C-alpha cells in the first residue's frame, strides 16, 4: 500500500508542520497518494486472510459474531494460536519475538482481524507493559516476563488510576515503602480492566514524597496478583456487567527485583506506555466493520415495512458518520506513515483518541436508532453461553446493541479523557 510517503512516489514529500505530519500535493494538483497494495502487500493480505479463515476457531467466531461474551480461556486459546503463528506481538522488536512488520503490514493485519471479527490480543501485557519491560527493564526481567506475555501464559492488568487520581494521575497515593529486602505496598487502584482474570498487575506507585515535582518519586512496579494482601473488588458499569475492578493493596510485599528501571523514574516509563495506549485507541478498522454490519441491518426490510436505510434522516446520519470515519482512517494512516519513517507517535495520537472514540460512540448511537424499540430490553443473560440465539428478544441481526452503547460511554473517559487529550494537543501541538 502506498500511503503518503511512498518512496516510489517522488512527487510526494513530507512537511513538518508544527508537530503534525502533512503531505504535499503533487504538481498535477492531485493528492499524491495511492492506496493500492503492491503485489507483495497483496500476497501478505491474502496470507493473513487465509490464516483467519482457517485458524480462528469456529466456536469463538460464533461467540463474537453473536455478541456472546468471551471467557478467559477463549482469549488464551486464541492468543496461543496467534503466538504459534508468530503474530502475537506485532509491535515488538524481532529480537524479543515481534513480527518486524512494516507499518503497512500492521495496517493490513488490523483490517483483517477486524474483518474476521476476531478479538485483539488483550492489550495490557503485550501492548502496554511489554514495551516498558523491553525498553527499560533489565535482562533478568526481560527473560522472566516477556516469554510468558508472548505465549499468553500470564495475564496482565494495569494499575494506574486511583479513586482520587484520574485525570490527575501524578497525584497518585499508592505507596511502596522500601524495607530491608522488599517494597511494602499499600493503596488502591481503580478502573482496573479484567483484574479479576489477571495474574500480574503493573503499577505506578509512590516511592518518595520528598520531591520537587509530583511526577518525581513515582516508580514502576510489577506485582504478582497472588501475593498476600492483594484483593480485587468488582465495579459494575452502567450497562450492568463486570469489566473493571478496584484493586486493593494491604501490606503487599514486592521483591526489589520487580522494580522496572530506576526508582522514582516510573512517570517517564509510564508516559511512554500511555502513548502506546493512545495509538491503539482510534479503532478505525473495527469501526469500519461495525458500520458495515449496521448498514446490512438497516438494509433489511422489516416485515411489511421499509428498510431503515430508505429513511432519509437515517441515511444522512449514516453518511455523515461514514465520512467522519473516512477522515479518521486517513488521519490514522498519516500517523502510521510518520511511524514508518521512524518517528514515535507524538501528541497527534491524541487526535486519534478523541475522534476515534467520538466516531465509535456515534456508531453505537446509530445502532441504537436502528434497533428502535428493540434497543430497550435489558437482558444480559441472553448473551451468555448456551442461551439459544433464536430465542433472544430483539431483531435477529443485532447483538448487544444497548449493552455496547452504554458501555461505550466510557471510551471518551478512559485512556486519558478526551478533555485531557485536548490539553495535550493545546500544550504540545499548539504551544499554548
Amino acid at each position: 500500500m502506498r500511503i503518503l510517503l511512498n518512496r516510489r512516489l517522488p512527487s510526494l514529500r513530507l512537511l513538518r508542520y508544527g508537530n503534525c505530519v502533512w503531505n504535499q500535493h503533487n504538481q498535477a494538483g492531485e493528492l499524491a497518494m495511492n492506496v493500492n497494495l503492491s503485489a507483495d502487500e497483496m500476497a501478505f493480505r491474502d496470507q493473513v486472510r487465509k490464516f483467519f479463515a482457517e485458524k480462528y476457531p469456529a466456536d469463538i467466531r460464533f461467540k463474537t459474531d453473536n455478541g456472546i461474551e468471551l471467557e478467559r480461556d477463549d482469549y488464551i486459546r486464541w492468543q496461543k494460536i496467534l503466538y504459534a503463528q508468530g503474530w502475537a506481538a506485532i509491535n515488538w522488536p524481532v529480537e524479543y519475538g515481534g513480527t518486524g512488520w512494516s507499518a503497512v503490514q500492521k495496517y493490513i493485519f488490523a483490517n483483517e482481524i477486524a474483518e474476521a471479527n476476531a478479538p485483539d490480543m488483550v492489550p495490557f501485557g503485550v501492548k502496554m507493559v511489554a514495551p516498558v519491560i523491553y525498553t527499560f527493564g533489565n535482562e533478568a526481567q526481560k527473560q522472566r516476563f516477556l516469554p510468558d506475555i508472548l505465549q499468553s501464559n500470564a495475564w496482565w492488568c494495569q494499575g494506574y488510576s486511583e479513586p482520587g487520581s484520574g485525570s490527575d494521575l501524578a497525584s497518585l497515593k499508592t505507596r511502596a515503602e522500601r524495607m530491608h529486602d522488599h517494597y511494602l505496598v499499600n493503596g488502591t487502584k481503580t478502573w482496573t480492566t479484567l483484574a479479576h482474570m489477571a495474574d500480574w498487575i503493573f503499577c505506578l506507585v509512590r516511592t518518595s514524597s520528598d520531591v520537587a515535582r509530583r511526577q518525581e518519586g513515582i516508580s514502576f512496579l510489577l506485582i504478582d496478583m497472588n501475593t498476600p494482601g492483594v484483593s480485587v473488588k468488582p465495579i459494575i458499569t452502567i450497562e450492568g456487567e463486570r469489566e473493571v475492578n478496584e484493586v486493593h493493596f494491604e501490606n503487599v510485599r514486592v521483591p526489589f527485583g520487580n522494580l522496572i528501571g530506576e526508582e522514582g523514574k516510573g512517570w517517564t516509563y509510564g508516559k511512554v506506555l500511555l502513548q502506546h495506549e493512545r495509538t491503539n485507541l482510534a479503532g478505525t478498522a473495527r469501526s469500519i466493520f461495525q458500520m458495515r454490519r449496521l448498514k446490512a441491518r438497516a438494509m433489511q426490510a422489516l416485515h411489511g415495512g421499509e428498510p431503515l436505510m430508505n429513511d432519509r434522516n437515517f441515511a444522512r446520519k449514516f453518511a455523515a458518520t461514514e465520512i467522519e470515519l473516512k477522515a479518521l482512517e486517513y488521519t490514522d494512516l498519516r500517523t502510521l506513515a510518520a511511524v514508518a519513517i521512524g518517528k514515535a507517535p507524538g501528541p497527534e495520537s491524541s487526535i486519534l483518541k478523541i475522534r476515534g472514540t467520538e466516531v465509535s460512540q456515534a456508531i453505537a448511537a446509530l445502532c441504537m436508532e436502528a434497533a428502535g424499540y428493540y434497543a430497550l430490553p435489558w437482558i444480559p443473560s441472553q448473551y451468555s453461553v448456551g442461551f439459544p440465539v433464536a430465542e433472544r428478544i430483539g431483531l435477529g441481526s443485532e447483538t448487544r446493541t444497548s449493552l455496547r452503547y452504554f458501555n461505550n460511554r466510557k471510551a471518551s473517559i478512559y485512556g486519558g479523557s478526551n478533555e485531557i487529550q485536548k490539553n495535550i494537543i493545546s500544550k504540545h501541538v499548539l504551544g499554548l
Partner: protein
Amino acid sequence: MDFSLTEEQEMLVESVSRFIDNDYDFDGRQKNAASETGFSNELWRTFAELGWTAVPFSEADGGLGGGPVELMLMMQQFGRGLVIEPFLANIVLAGGVLRRLATTEQKSRWLQPLIAGELQAALGFAEPQGRFNSADVATVAKRAGDGFVLNGRKNLVLNGGNAALIIIPARTSGKQKDRSGITLFAIDGGSAGITRKAYKTVDGHQAAEISLADVRVAPKAVLGDIGLGFDTLQSVMDEATLAVSAEAIGIIRAMHDKTVEYTKNRVQFGVPIGSFQALQHRLVDTLVACEQTYSLLLWTAMVCAANDPAASRAISALKYQVGSAGMHVAREAVQLHGGMGVTWELDIAHFFKRMTSIELLFGNTDYHLDRYVSLS
C-alpha cells in the same frame, strides 16, 4: 403573562416533591427495579392513597379532574426521582384510553380499580415492524360469532408482564398502515392464546413482548367504535409524549445540578475541576439547554391545556427539543463525572439510561421533527 401555579397545583407539586425527597431513595429504587414485578406494589398503593393515580381523570369517574399541566408537574418530579412505578403505563397509556372510550360498565370494571391502584394495565402501542408509527397495525381482529379472534404481536408493552388488563389495537379493516380500521380491545392478560415474554428495560423499568394466537374476545371487550380507534390512540400517545418529555426535564435538570455539584467537589490538579473554564462553559451550555427545554415544556402544556388544534405539533416540537437538548445534557453529565459517571453505583448512569429510553419512546427526535414539519 402568568406562569404561576394554582393553589391546587402547588399542593400537587409539594406532595410529589416531598415524597421524592423523603420516601423515594435511589437504593430502594434499585432494589425494587431488580424485583420480579420491577417496582414496589406498596409504593404504588401509596401513589393511589395520595390521589396521584386519580389526577388525570374526571370527577365523574372518581378522578381529580387534572389536565396536561398537572400531568407535566407530576412527571417532572417523577423524572427527578427516577421513579420506576408504572404511572405512564397504567395511568397515562391504559388509563388514557379507558378515560376516553370506556362505557360506564367498562369503567367500573377497569378504570375504578386502576385509579384505586388495584389493577395493573398496559397498552400495546407498538408492533415490531411499525417502528414509531402507531397506525402500522398488523395485528388482526376477525369477527367470530358475536365476538372477535385476535392474532398478532406487540413489542415493548410497558408494564406488559404485570398487566391484568392489556389494551390491544387491532385491525378490523383496511390495510396495514391505514388510520381507519383500527379497533381497541380490552383483553384479560391471562386469556388463552396470549404469550408474554416479560423483561426489564435498560432504564430499570419493565415491559413485555406479547404475541396473540387466536385470542377470543367477547363484544364487551371492544373500547369505543369499531374501526375508529386510531384518533384516540393518537391522542393518548400525544399525552404520553408530553408526559415523558416532562419526565425528561426532571431528569436533565437533576443531571445538570448533580454535575455542577460534582465539579465543585471533585479535586484534580489541586483544584476543583469546576474551576476550569473549559468545563464551566460546558456547564453553562447544559444550563441553557435545560432552561430552553423547560420553556418549551411550559408552552406545550399551555397549548394542550387550551385544547388548541396545534397541540400535536407543539408536542412534536417539545419531543424534538427533549431528544436533542436532553441527550446533550445527559452525555455531558456522564462525561464530566468521569469514570464515576459510567458506574452502576451512581445514579447519573441511570438518569442517562432513562433519558436514552425517552429519546426513543413514542418516536425519536427525527420522527418528531418530521411530524412537526408535516403538521406545520
